[in-house]
């Protein structure tokens, strides 16, 4: 199947996903309904700070992890 020109493939939590080109981390979090979970984001091995979600853009081939923080002891 030919990839839609306005979409790209990225990997989220180990699964390959087709998402719109130029999508922000913030929009991805909204799309995945993770906004209220307090989770943290890793993009290609780097931590993405919450204040930067809206201006951080996903690129083709990006590897993203949405990680729930561990606060138990």
């Amino acid at each position, binding site marked *: 199947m030919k990839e839609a020109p306005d979409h790209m493939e990225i990997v989220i939590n180990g699964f390959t996903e087709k998402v719109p080109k130029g999508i922000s981390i913030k929009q991805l979090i909204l799309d995945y309904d993770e906004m*209220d*979970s307090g989770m943290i984001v890793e993009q290609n091995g*780097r*931590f993405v*700070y919450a204040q930067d979600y809206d201006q951080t853009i996903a690129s083709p081939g990006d590897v993203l992890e949405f990680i729930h923080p561990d*606060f*138990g002891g």
Partner: protein
Amino acid sequence: MSTPLSSEEALRYHRQMVLPEIGEKGQGRLKRAFVFLAGLGGLGSVSALYLTAAGVGRLRGVDKDRVEWGNLNRQLLHFTEDVGGIKAESAGNKLRSLNPRCRIEAIHETLTMENGEELVGDADLIVDGTDNVETRRILNRVSLNKGIPYVFGGVDGLTGMVTTFIPGKTPCFECLFPDDRFPKAPPGVLGPLPGIIGSIQALVAIKFLLGLPHGLLESRLLYVDGAALSFRTIEMGRNNKCRVCGGLVDNGETVS
């Protein structure tokens, strides 16, 4: 000014003193060190045991709780006969028995924004054995205000995290976790996870106290996935928009 080690100490610490990274000089550094440990539960039991066994000279542990049956699957300082007793007392007794050479100050107290700075005192290092965001924010503020490094650890289910916050050098706790909407319910947890995370915290603490400059998890978040049995680190840059530390504060300003 270093105090020579007794013959008993030389025997007790022999297996670590033969390491080139430690030797008699390093052991002396550990003996002169003062570590503040918040929480004597799953994480704190394990880090306290290793720090005490390694010969850290002074360990101040604070915990407000009593020992419950549900603690015993992972909180290795507390035994069946301790259920119902004060956790700080239970922990203090075990740690003193393990190593009477260490000065163990086990305090039954709630850590608050008001008493945090006094309780931490002039510790060389803060080690996190807590189980909630609120107390970690207190530790973070104390760390920033006093310039004391803070070894964060946390577990949940089959995963865990560790990183070291060094004021003025690395991001702080609230750089990473600014959100207030964290779940309040206590997470499920399998004993070996706090064992692994508490052990790594103790390793980082000992290396820091020895003055070893590498592998302290500065600006790196170690993420342990016990289901996949994988360890990986996430690199962290500066967070200049942090509401607490502003990404870098080493100008003597305090935060509140």
